[in-house]
């Protein structure tokens, strides 16, 4: 076990670029058998969790509703976490500003809908490019050139940025919650569970964008460059990859993922300046769960955390659903810092 325990920690030491889990961005899974076995364990635990929830609540419908809602929300969490984990995998930056950038995108969506009366989903056309540019600017302006700086300093810069963005929003828009309503929203029943159309669209949209991201990383030349930089920055530089550009674009793509998720989630939540914090926390949990730097793991982790969140409200009456998320987080962090699907170091 000692080798696995060190796995996560080694990631953060810039001095040991090889063999750290962060570098295994989208790497081929280590042995399909091991992966399947682990997926089986995770699935088994999920089934047990659901069974316990059934016993606790005594109502199959309540639990089924939680499972459906949880999985639908989980898709969104996965999308947010994908951006975060991509940034970590390639740049080794723990981006604390991810949630605040998400909040910015929500306010962009809100503003555009208010101003032009556009359909909320059409604001994707504004919010995603805007967030892409903001991401690129943030990387160029604030983070680029801190490559050699200590982890703490990068963490502090993104923390400062997050505070700045959040409080900037608070200053300009005030703390009153805002709503983005989805025109023509509908509901339908899925074997008894009520599903809102907005949730379903958000889930499907997240899966679709996730698939595009996956395709981009696995099948395009640019994706190859990203993976090369993630695997070995110096080596990539030697064969002619412009590493700094790849870093900027990766940061921008990761931020754009948050932008897309924000637009999809905007009709489902009340938009406030501090909303990003909640999503940020959840996204970090998902990232650790899926293995830092593991994009596919982020999606699976997202689904799991969505499930955990909903089941928590059944397990613990009157408690915040985040409590269960944190419990799972600490357990995973202590026992498998390389994530559920991360490879052994």
């Amino acid at each position, binding site marked *: 076990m000692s080798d696995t*325990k*060190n796995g*996560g*920690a080694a990631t*953060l*030491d810039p001095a040991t670029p090889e063999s750290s889990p962060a570098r295994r961005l989208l790497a081929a899974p280590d042995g399909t058998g091991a992966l399947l076995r682990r997926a089986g364990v995770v699935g088994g635990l999920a089934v047990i969790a659901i069974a316990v929830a059934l016993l606790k609540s005594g109502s199959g419908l309540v639990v089924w509703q939680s499972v459906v809602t949880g999985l639908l929300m989980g898709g969104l969490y996965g999308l947010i976490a994908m951006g975060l984990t991509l940034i970590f995998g390639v740049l080794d930056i*723990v981006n604390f500003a991810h949630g605040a950038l998400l909040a910015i995108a929500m306010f962009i969506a809100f503003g555009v809908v208010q101003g032009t009366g556009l359909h909320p989903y059409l604001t994707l056309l504004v919010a995603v490019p805007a967030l892409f540019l903001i991401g690129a600017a943030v990387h160029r302006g*604030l983070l680029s050139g*801190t490559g050699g*700086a*200590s*982890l*703490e*300093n990068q*963490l*502090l*810069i993104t*923390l*400062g*940025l*997050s*505070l*700045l963005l*959040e*409080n*900037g*929003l*608070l*200053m300009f828009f*005030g*703390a009153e919650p805002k709503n983005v309503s989805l025109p023509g929203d509908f509901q339908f029943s899925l074997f008894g569970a009520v599903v809102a159309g907005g949730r379903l669209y958000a889930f499907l949209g997240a899966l679709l964008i996730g698939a595009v991201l996956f395709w981009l990383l696995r099948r395009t030349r640019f994706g190859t460059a990203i993976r090369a930089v993630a695997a070995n920055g110096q080596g990539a530089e030697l064969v002619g990859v412009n590493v700094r550009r790849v870093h900027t674009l990766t940061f921008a793509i990761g931020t754009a993922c948050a932008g897309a998720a924000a637009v999809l989630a905007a009709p489902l939540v009340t938009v406030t*300046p501090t909303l990003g*914090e909640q999503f940020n*926390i959840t996204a*970090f*949990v998902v990232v*650790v769960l899926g293995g830092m730097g593991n994009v596919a793991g982020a999606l699976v982790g997202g689904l799991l955390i969505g499930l955990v969140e909903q089941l928590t409200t059944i397990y613990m009456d*009157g*408690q*915040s659903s*985040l*409590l269960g998320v*944190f*419990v799972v*987080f*600490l357990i995973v*962090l*202590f*026992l498998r*810092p390389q994530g559920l699907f991360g490879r052994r170091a």
Partner: protein
Amino acid sequence: MTGITITGGRDATASRSAKAPPLRPQNRQLIILGVLLLVAIPLPLLLPSAQGAVAVRILIFAIMAIGWNTMSGFGGMFSFGHAAFFGLGAYTSAYLLVNHGVSPWIGMLAGMAVAALAAVVIGYFAFRYKLQGAYFALATFAFAEMLRLIVTTTEFTNKAVGFTVPLIEGSSLWKIQFPADSPAYFWVALALAGLAALASILFLHSRTGRYVTAIRDDETAAASLGTPVMRYKLITVGLSAAITAVAGAFYTQYYLFVNPELAFGSSVSVQAIATVVIGGIGTIWGPVVGAVIVGSLSDVTATLLRTPPEFLSFLQGRSGLDVALYAILLILIVRLLPKGIVGTLQSRWRRR
């Protein structure tokens, strides 16, 4: 853990000159502390009362920052969840005082003990499973957030309402309650801050402190020489939590009110971090300098919000400016002076 300097240490004895032997760094720092305290004592009598309140807040910041710096600066264990210890100090003393009439002094000691215990427990697990860097930071953050959520939904901590400390007649040192604007609040806070600084100086130069800085600089090497790494880390974490709890307990006494967000909210942790980073991580005086800057800055922004100049009139009554400003300061310091103000000055001084 680059970019961290500590004052004093072994190099001082090496540079001993033939004539008047220079002071050992520990003694030098103690003398500075004494002078600072002497200079500060008459302050509340000289300052107008509004500034007096700022001074007390600066001292609370300083205690909290010294606590964070002990663990994250000297120990290299980057905590993102110091709100947990601040909150435990605040809530333990508030609970004992409000529900059982126990003196806040005893409540403070109890809060220190509770916070230290919590820190040792979470620290034990974190070190046992070798969490480092961002993983450690995230674990401490999750711990503080869990406490916040639990306190928000627990009956005996009054859920989201929190505690309001009842006012007593007259003034009483035993209950740390004085007439409003009394300089006594400042003196009590000053004494506590002085003790915290004293503890951090003595700790840094103690056997444990030296082991801990050695572990921070190269844990593998220290462990291979037979240093009981776990023990020294846990002592550091416990001490850090206890100091931070003092800030929490005094905070409750001074503002007479505490709720889950004020005590356990992530902004408390951020404040502790920002204060030390601006002042200089891993230095004795960094937390103090940082507290003076952050504390005065929040006063400046408060004034700015009450009576904004013409071109900033839209800011009237808006919140968020103070945090936004120190966020900018934080980013600038990290980008331009990665060692913080004190750290940068020290390395300039040494180069000469």
